């Protein structure tokens, strides 16, 4: 599968890197607070069936313009600005974690402008009895245990093989992580709740909510809350997967998404 990389500029002026592969119905993917990994096998698999556009938010990868986005509305409008710049009409939109929160906000703003919505371990809600751990206070070695079903494999994926005991590697990871989470903090800090719950009633697109059964960051009880708040939503839970469900169980994940999107 060949992947094209392109840089687009939104009307607001953000310069965004987009990875594009496959053909078929357009499917826009929005990553979580950690950004895309160097390898994203689930996107490669989806590209066998759909025209996949994986966009990177400002401050992530080579995308810039972070100073242009300050609050939830900016992020959601930015999402639509990217779709406009790509020239897409009624794409499917899929977002993971923070990307799910943004995708859901986009769909609430313009419910008739997308075909189907996929929310993967999505942020955006807060249940007092099930507080989400504070990712902004994690030290580098603490992420994997919350993000993955299999912590050891997860750590390798997260660091791209970097040895965090090596000071230079640690610095590189820390600075990259600070840059990404600094941006994410604008909509996730200190509590990842910007009142999405009171807007979800507006959704008209069929929605799939996908969750890892052993998600220790945003536990699966949040999947049920999304289902309860969205007019037409179905939930799929995937075994032996944590918060990074698309990375941990790509086959099962892609099968569920494909079944839903058709």
């Amino acid at each position: 599968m060949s992947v094209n990389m392109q840089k687009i500029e939104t009307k607001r002026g953000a310069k965004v890197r987009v990875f594009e592969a496959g053909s078929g119905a357009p499917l826009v993917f929005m990553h979580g607070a950690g950004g895309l990994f160097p390898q994203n096998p689930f996107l490669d698999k989806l590209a066998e069936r759909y025209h996949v556009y994986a966009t990177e938010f400002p401050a992530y990868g080579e995308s810039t313009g972070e100073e242009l986005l300050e609050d939830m509305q900016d992020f959601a409008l930015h999402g639509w600005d990217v779709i406009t710049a790509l020239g897409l009409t009624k794409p499917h939109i899929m977002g993971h974690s923070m990307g799910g929160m943004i995708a859901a906000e986009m769909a609430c703003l313009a419910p008739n402008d997308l075909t189907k919505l996929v929310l993967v371990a999505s942020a955006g809600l807060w249940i007092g009895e099930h507080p989400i751990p504070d990712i902004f206070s994690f030290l580098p070695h603490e992420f994997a245990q919350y993000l993955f079903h299999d912590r050891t494999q997860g750590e390798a994926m997260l660091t791209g093989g970097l040895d965090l005991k090596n000071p230079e590697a640690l610095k590189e990871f820390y600075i990259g992580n600070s840059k990404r989470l600094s941006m994410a903090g604008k909509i996730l800090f200190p509590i990842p709740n910007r009142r999405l719950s009171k807007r979800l009633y507006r959704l008209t697109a069929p929605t799939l909510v996908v969750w890892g059964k052993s998600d220790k960051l945003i536990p699966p009880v949040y999947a049920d809350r999304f289902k309860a708040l969205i007019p037409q939503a179905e939930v799929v839970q995937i075994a032996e997967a944590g918060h990074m469900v698309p990375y941990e169980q790509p086959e099962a994940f892609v099968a569920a998404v494909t079944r839903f999107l058709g």
Partner: protein
Amino acid sequence: MKFTWFNLMPWPYLPDDFREKHHSVWVDIPNTLYDPQKGHFVYHQYMDQLEYAEALGFDGIGCNEHHQNGYGLMPSPNIIAAGLARRTSKAAIAVIGNSLALYNPPIRVAEEFAMLDVISGGRLLAGFPVGTSMDTNYCYGQIPALTREKYAEAHELVMRAWHEDKPFAFDGKYNQLRHVNLWPKPIQKPNPPIYIPGGGSIETWDFCLDNDHNYSYLSFTGYLRGKKLLDGYWDRVAKRGKDESPYRAAFAQTICVADTDAEAEKLYAEHVNYFYNRCLHIYGGFADAPGYRTIKTLQADVVNALSEDMQNLFPSLSWKDLVDGGYVIAGSPETVRHRMEDLIKGLHVGHIFCLLHVGNMPDWKTRHSSKLFAEKVMPHLRNMWPEWKDDNRWWCNPMETRLQPEHGVEKARQDGRIPL
């Protein structure tokens, strides 16, 4: 030289195994460790010590703001300062300070500082810290990437409120106020002297120099480590074409004085150890929320702060390490005097925030150390900047006819000082 006696107000009853048993002294410290009935006496003892410092002849007495912090019992330093303002009349009241981004709206700071300035008869030194990441982001929920901008806006609002004589509208990004009209206004004109506690970023230095605010470097790692940072500041001062008055800068230093060097170790080592071991047991994940510092600043010095060596540094330092390394200036009056001279000349500072109460130091030791410093050290250091002796730009300018606590309002009325 100006000497301000500072009390961080640590909780003195952290258990021996605090470091082993608990996650952090700050943010998520178990609040079951706090005992309000003991706290009653702790506050009064600490405030008594601050009043005693005035009696000893310290130029200022100081307090600061921390939240959910085992070594800082002052979420509202203004409450402490109000108590001090009523019971003292000579010393400057140094509130270092109010974290501007945490007050909603920040006009509250302009009001409360004006109240303190009026009650104290014009003795306020007004500090405006950005606030640590622990306080500002983790305890008070400010979005890290937007904290500095919010702070800068709040600073602009407070300064305008103090300066303007007519109501004005303020259309900020973080604060929208249709009718800003400060009441009461401070005694000191155009505003009380302003102190900006900061780390080593060029942005903070320029902010101080743009506004002619004092730059205060507050750390617990002492003057030898502070040298590099203050050298950077003075380079910046020179580059900006500002005069090099030592009163542009303040430095906080832990100081322990006894009759002899050996006696200093005997009296104070356990309390210094309490502070560096238990009070500075801060979980690394709370030190620096992503976005609190700029990427540029991070690139400059992130590795040090992150390394495991640094995380475990303090508890492994012996009394000798701490004293030789300048974290703590301790010893006989003679020893302390020489090291203070090195500090003052080496850092080129005119203001010292003297941390003479340390950790869980009992009252009598605190007073003993403070008295020796005031009587046997301070007089020798007074005139270290003769060429700048008339530079009062960063000191308070109290009203001459202010009240003395021992006389009160009735005496002032008899003297014809007040038109009541």
